[in-house]
């Protein structure tokens, strides 16, 4: 076993070596390096063929028409294009947007920006298990609502939103439905032919493809219109200008093709590892799982170890790469807004670890990580005045703390 162990697959994944090999063929002078927009020579035609092949590979995984795939620099750009593009195009129809408090910052901050531009945004509270109550969502919809943006799988807690039923609600009201699927594609089956999703953001680097490439699915029937956010040579049917990065796109296509072939078996394998991991931590007292256990991708565990602060816990786990919802790990010094939106106390948000498993995770790594976490939690609890008080039977919620 090689140290350190990578358990942060929700942050990014390594490029699968089968993908890297293909990408390398689209860079150098003896490869296919042409500009896919060059129409006058073979170099361009070959590159264009590679792009269209990759477009088919993406379409295949999410079951849509390849013409509905627009390349972007990643899911963040796709989220921006979807929300700003719809807001701008449909501004005379309405100025109301609905999203959720646990969305990725690429959605939240885009919505905040639009608030400054005269739009009104409803940020729904999720239920304590992280899922959206469809009745509350339906109640928030108004005649002037133009877009609903709800992520498929949450990046911090891994819960899966019911996009099938949300799509029924939006379609019935003629509201555009955008889904950020960066964390779900390649983990959960997506059938855009059946789902009433109008726009879907996709990423390559969460699915063993390269960083710096993603796509936005834009439905053609019924047609969804967008105002372009990046102007230039009119690439991607005018929706997103800029020379296409052939090697990146080939990489994303190859990664999605592998995902389609291996997704089911991979999920089964990861679920077994996830359960093994939970089992090994089960007897530690005062550990809380954040987010629903069942409506969740097996790749993600988000646990709060009460009375232990997340950053110091990560310091003790120096051979393991993972993330924490603790304020001390963020530039803002605020604990995770996702965990807070679930109604978790700030203290439990400070005490959280996100462990995300992936293609190259082994049982040996899981056993090692579980043992290291157990040791670290024990050590830090011995150091913790809160643990001492808890064991003395003090109710910590009744203590007068000097907030600072």
């Amino acid at each position: 076993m090689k140290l350190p162990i990578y358990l942060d697959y929700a942050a990014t994944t390594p490029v699968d070596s089968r993908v890297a090999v293909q990408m390398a063929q689209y860079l150098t002078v003896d490869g296919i390096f042409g500009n896919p927009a060059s129409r006058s020579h073979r170099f361009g035609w070959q590159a264009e063929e590679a792009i269209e092949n990759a477009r088919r590979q993406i379409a295949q995984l999410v079951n849509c028409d390849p013409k509905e795939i627009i390349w972007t620099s990643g899911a963040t750009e796709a989220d921006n294009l979807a929300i700003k593009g719809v807001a701008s195009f449909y501004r005379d129809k309405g100025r109301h947007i609905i999203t959720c408090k646990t969305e990725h910052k690429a959605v939240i901050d885009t919505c905040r920006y639009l608030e400054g531009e005269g739009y009104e945004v409803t940020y729904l509270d999720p239920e304590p298990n992280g899922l959206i109550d469809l009745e509350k969502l339906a109640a928030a919809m108004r005649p002037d609502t133009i877009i609903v943006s709800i992520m498929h799988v949450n990046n911090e807690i891994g819960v899966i939103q019911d996009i099938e039923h949300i799509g029924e609600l939006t379609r019935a009201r003629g509201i555009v439905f955008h889904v950020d699927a960066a964390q779900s594609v390649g983990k959960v089956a997506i059938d855009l032919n059946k789902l009433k999703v109008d726009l879907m953001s996709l990423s390559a680097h969460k699915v063993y493809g390269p960083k710096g490439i993603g796509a936005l699915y834009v439905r053609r029937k019924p047609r969804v219109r967008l105002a372009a956010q990046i102007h230039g040579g009119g690439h991607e049917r005018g929706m997103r200008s800029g020379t296409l990065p052939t090697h990146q796109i080939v990489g994303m296509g190859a990664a999605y093709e592998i995902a389609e072939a291996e997704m089911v078996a991979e999920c089964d394998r990861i679920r077994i590892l996830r359960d093994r991991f939970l089992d090994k931590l089960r007897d530690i007292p005062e550990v809380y799982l954040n987010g629903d256990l069942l409506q969740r991708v097996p790749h993600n565990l988000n646990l709060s170890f009460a009375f232990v602060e997340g950053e110091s816990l990560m310091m003790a786990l120096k051979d393991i790469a993972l993330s924490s919802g603790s304020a001390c790990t963020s530039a803002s010094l605020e604990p995770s807004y996702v965990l807070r939106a679930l109604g978790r106390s700030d203290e439990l948000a400070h005490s959280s670890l996100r462990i995300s498993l992936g293609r190259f995770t082994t049982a040996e790594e899981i056993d090692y990580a579980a043992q290291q976490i157990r040791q670290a939690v024990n050590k830090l609890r011995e150091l913790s005045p809160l643990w001492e008080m808890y064991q003395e039977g003090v109710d910590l919620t009744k203590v007068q703390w000097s907030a600072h």
Partner: protein
Amino acid sequence: MSYSEKVIDHYENPRNVGAFDKTEQNVGTGMVGAPACGDVMKLQIKVNAAGIIEDARFKTYGCGSAIASSSLLTEWVKGKTLHEAQEIKNTQIAEELALPPVKIHCSVLAEDAIKAAIADYQAKQSKEA
């Protein structure tokens, strides 16, 4: 977050971890911070008849620099008079541990903790008298 070697040393080998009986007359206890803010420090001092801090203990819930700040403080206060300990400034702690700017509040908390422990000890003595 990349920490100095001193922070890592105190974090990995914290000095004077533990607790005194807080009901004892010669023990002063200071508890500062809040769980919601991500750090709570409990600092205890044992003071002899000559007014010198003979021993100190701490327990800290918080990040690596909060643990290191309180660990360092327990080393520093031992052998000092109450007056000398009262004079310890957060900037000295921050400097000794080379704390990054976002972690300065950890050293502030440590200064608050020793002041609170001394105040608790003095309050006990005045009640006695």
